[in-house]
């Protein structure tokens, strides 16, 4: 009997927390389908009297290029990820398996760089990009993130555990070191690479600080910045459209999360698994 009581208590607490956690999502969805007059009467109703999803979403999509924002997010995140992997994988391999002058210095430097968040070099980088007239480009959004010290550190850890014998055998078979890296060693780290990919994608999809600094043209804005531009235009007026926009911009990651839960959690909490 006492087991049942404690079970009820546990679920009560968890459900209360879950309700608070879901509150914004639920309210976002509920508001996005309400017409303006219902929004402005402050009730606790969830379900609207009049279904206005159509007009809210249409307004959101037409008054701001929301899909464009999502596309920008996709371009930027994919671009960043591709370059991150292209740079990090060979470097991690070299740090793990090859001996060359400056190896230890490089490793120590990567450890130090791990502690530096992007907001620190932001100022000088901005000045440099301004002088090179590269502001307001996709390139400028991606550039500071091309080097992921985290990926190097993570993959080096992985590659260190890769058996040397297989590499020796491949060398004896006449494989170039380049081929060894991409055709043999990298595929073995696929789970770590996949988890990192999730981590990187989510982090940069949701990034506001750097895009805010380098982008002023709404056509190039990634989702968070786009949301800001959209809200500026709609401040104080159409909460229905605003929450519809929020829904559209939040949906991709949330849906991806629901489908690939394990990978998401593993990826995002990689910072805890060093």
């Amino acid at each position, binding site marked *: 009997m006492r087991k049942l009581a404690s079970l009820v208590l*546990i*679920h009560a*607490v*968890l459900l209360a*927390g*879950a309700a608070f*956690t*879901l509150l*914004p999502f639920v*309210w*976002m969805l509920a508001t996005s389908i309400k017409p303006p007059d219902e929004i*402005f009467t*402050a009730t*606790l109703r969830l379900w609207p009297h009049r279904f206005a999803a159509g007009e809210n979403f249409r307004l959101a999509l037409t008054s701001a290029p929301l899909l464009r924002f999502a596309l920008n997010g996709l371009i930027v995140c994919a671009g960043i990820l591709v370059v991150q992997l292209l*740079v*990090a994988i060979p*470097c991690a391999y*070299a*740090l793990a398996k*090859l*001996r*060359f*002058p400056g*190896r230890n210095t*490089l490793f120590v430097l990567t450890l130090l*760089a791990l*502690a*530096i968040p992007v*907001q*620190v*070099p932001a*100022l*000088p980088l901005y*000045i440099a990009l301004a002088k090179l007239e590269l502001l307001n480009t996709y390139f400028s959004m991606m*550039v500071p993130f*091309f*080097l992921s*010290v985290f990926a190097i550190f993570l993959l080096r850890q992985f590659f260190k555990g890769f058996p040397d014998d297989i590499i020796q055998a491949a060398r004896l078979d006449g494989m170039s070191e380049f081929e060894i890296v991409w055709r043999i060693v990298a595929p073995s780290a696929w789970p770590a690479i996949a988890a990192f990919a999730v981590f990187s994608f989510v982090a940069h999809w*949701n990034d*506001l*600080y750097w895009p*805010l*600094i380098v982008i002023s043209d709404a056509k190039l804005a990634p*989702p*968070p*910045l786009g*949301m*800001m531009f959209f809200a500026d235009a709609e401040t104080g007026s159409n909460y229905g459209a*605003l*929450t519809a926009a*929020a829904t559209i911009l*939040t949906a991709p990651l*949330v849906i*991806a999360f*629901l489908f690939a*839960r394990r990978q*998401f959690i593993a990826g*995002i*909490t990689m910072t*805890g698994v060093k």
Partner: protein
Amino acid sequence: MTRLDPVLAAQRAARRREWLEKLTGMGFAFPATLLLVVMSLAPLAVLFVLSFTDYDLGNVDLRFIGLANFSKALADPVFRQSLWNTFVYVAIVLPLAVALGLLVAILVHGRKHTRSFYEVVYFLPVTSTLIAMAFVWTFLLHPKLGPINAFLGALGFPPLAFLSDPALVLPTLAVIGVWQLVGFNMVLFLAGLTAIPKDLYEAAEVDGCANPIDRFLTITWPLLGPTTMFVIVTTTITAFKVFDTVAVMTRGGPMGASDVILYSIYLEGFQYFHTAYAAALTVVFLVFILVFSVIQTLVLDRRTHYG
């Protein structure tokens, strides 16, 4: 002489292999090294240098003014307030995010059928785009239109101006910060809890350590030690870097009550273009982050303490 040739040839081949390995290594590491220098080290150096000058963006030349920027920052009421606000924010977020994360993890850890459900629900805020959710929160907290005030009104309380009352704005932002972090911490704690062997709890039960408080104090808490330290440091660093909610919901207001370090830096550097001053502020910011990161590295070394 012919007997030595194979030996010499072998030595030469070995030396060539070594040289080839060195070349390959450096070649593989080259792009990363280049980016490291260009994206991290050079900017860091420039930042330091700039912080000792009076450069504003667009100026033709600059003068070295020593530590003037730093003393200006320490005396600047706006910066001091943003420093204070940031620390207050961290002071509220840290205990809540860690304790709630731990509590939820412990409660969820024992569930069999509902575990996935709760994991998904609590982790949702971590994956959501914070800016979008920030707008939703603005609406939720709206004095006249928001459901939270409507709920308070239904209970007979007067409406609270969560975002425009200087006394309430930081705690409100802190609660939103906690909302976003609990799921993340929960997952970290769950990993730590799963690592505790089940038979320790069984042995403890036979030994008389039966009620939940004893189990927690005797086994769970000590063995979670390294995980807890790690969560604390990570939460501190994340909370210290708060920016998105401030930029979108309050813009530092009302009257600087929610101004935080990164927002100050952003304004000084990218709105007012007081570049050198912003550089000095960034250096201060960096020092704090480095201190936290050093602690984090030391903690990670302790993680393999219990064999």
